[in-house]
């Protein structure tokens, strides 16, 4: 099971096709990078020179942009992702305790994208009125509590076992 979308295995040809599809936009770099991540689940480092050549940029320019943002992961995505909010509104209702128990239960530190279930942090999902909040495989989860979190993790673990 993937995060609700089928990923394409990375290849230079497929990457070129994705890049060319968006190359005509004004300011195409960000849409191109997003499209690559959407298609392959991550940004393969070997796509960087392709992007640079197609968009007439230097590799350093592309690298500088890729590394600035949190979204452009350069390693293949885990099957599932638990993304927990760590910003103030979520802190005010025990968000940090949820982060700690998720980390303990999964046996990985926050920020881990290896293994079947990634555990990542995010600073605000706009669900601050329903804090603590998370995104599980891209879907919003609000008023998260310890038992619900444990159940969600059990479910994900069962589906990847």
């Amino acid at each position, binding site marked *: 099971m993937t995060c609700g979308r089928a990923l394409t295995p990375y290849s230079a040809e497929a990457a070129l096709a994705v890049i060319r599809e968006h190359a005509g936009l004004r300011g195409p*770099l960000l849409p191109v990078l997003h499209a690559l991540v959407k298609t392959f689940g991550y940004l393969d480092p070997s796509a960087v020179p392709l992007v640079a050549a197609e968009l007439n940029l230097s590799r350093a320019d592309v690298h500088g942009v890729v590394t600035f943002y949190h*979204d452009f992961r350069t390693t293949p995505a885990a099957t599932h992702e638990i993304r927990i909010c760590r910003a*103030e*509104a979520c802190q005010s209702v025990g968000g940090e305790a949820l982060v700690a128990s998720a980390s303990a239960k999964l046996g990985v530190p926050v920020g881990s994208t290896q293994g079947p279930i990634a555990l990542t942090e995010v600073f605000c999902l706009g669900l*601050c009125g*329903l804090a603590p909040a998370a995104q599980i495989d891209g879907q919003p989860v609000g008023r998260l509590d310890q038992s619900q979190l444990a159940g969600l993790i059990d479910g994900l673990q069962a589906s990847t076992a």
Partner: protein
Amino acid sequence: MTVVYVPGDSGARSVGADAVANALVAKAAERGLDVTVIRNGSRGMLWLEPLVEVVTEAGRVGYGSVAAAEIDELLAAGMLVGAASPNCIGIVDELDWLTKQERFTFARVGVTDPLSLADYEAHGGLVGLRRAIELTPTEVVAAVLESGLRGRGGAGFPAGIKWRTVLETESPTKFVVINADEGDSGTYADRMLLEGDPFLLIEGCVIAGLSVRAEFGFVYIRSEYPDAIATFNRALDVARAAGWLGADILGSGRAFDLEVRVGAGAYICGEETSLLESIEGRRPVVRSKPPLPAIEGLFGQPTLVNNVLTVAAVPFVLANGAAAYQELGMGRSRGTQVFQLAGNVARPGIVELAFGVSVDELVNTFGGGTRTGRPVHAVQVGGPLGAYLPVEQLSLPMDYEALLAAGAMLGHGGIVVFDDGADMWAQARFAMSFCAAESCGKCTPCRIGAVRGVEVIDRISQGTDVAANLVLLEDLCELMTDGSLCALGGLTPLPVRSVLRHFSSAVPASPTPVGPSGGSR
């Protein structure tokens, strides 16, 4: 046939609204009941989500905190005719919480089907744009100026002056850029508007484009908002097909179109020049000003950069007249502000009211105090760069100048409540570490200062040279305030100093309280 509203807003979805909508369709079919489910936006009474509304002859009857498992029972009990039940909250439009508000910008959010053009027009939509088409650009800009509308992104710059600058800067190509990066914790009004009434933002953007003579605009939405991106993109298609966007807006012969750009997880991209760099595809490092974006912005062209709520306020101004907007408010803060109650609060949600309302009224009267039931201890207003207000300061009015004078700021109108379990010293540390993590790196006081700030706070926590390190922390705060290029570095000291000043008992082993506690500066 009975019409039932189940919010499709991501907040409602985060607590099970999809399952409720599905159960409603399935169970009604089993019972042979004729039901049409409409996915509306959220009314902004978030503690009641999922809030189901049934259209009855008496009005829309609400059922709060509905679980999918209860639907069959509710149907059996006569929910479709508005029958009483423990979840029933009565006629939604008559609830105090809503009637006490002044919903100008959020008038339709939660009321209409977000993607129905007919609904939009039936509820007052497009009146402002039609009016704008009859007026000259100069007249529209004059109305925006007269309304007293100020930018809702945080800085509170008068919108009319910015619009006038872009209008008066000659160039064959100009842009409108809408800032929907909404990175501040505790803020979610941009998101709810994008999901709940996207045509309002489109209408505002078209008015902006026609009045500053720009034919193209970008709406920059943060990637953390997948639902908002999807809904807004669908709304653009619908609006374009209806001729509300494109080469001939409503038959006026004038052109304007919009495109969504998606952020990639960087708080600094909310800063307007960083945002422009981001759209251009460069490393989104903050630009020095001047030149102002209004004169030399996106791709070097005159660019109107406004927050979602700023532009979304304009259709009201044109439809009802600048005076109708201007007459509300306090001091130089005119009109309404969409406040967002968040965190540890019993009744979180959207409260749109004239400026001048006190923090206390928002937190305690509307919000009902903390969700945990413990005493309110601190209230952070204005996002991660906003001050933590102690209880003694809650009488402060929501007004740009009054908050500034008290060492605080309004920002984008987010209000995050903490109870007495909060570790305020940890909150001060978080402010510094957030700045360190999100700094664009252009200037030293922010890039290095925030890292040093975390280190100094940690040393104080460990009890190392507390007095000396507290002085150092104050020095660092001063340096960051005075020496940073943008408000990320420049305002991070605000929450830190508010903790030092008003929550001194939380500062580890601090021998004496630093500065006066309580009251305003």
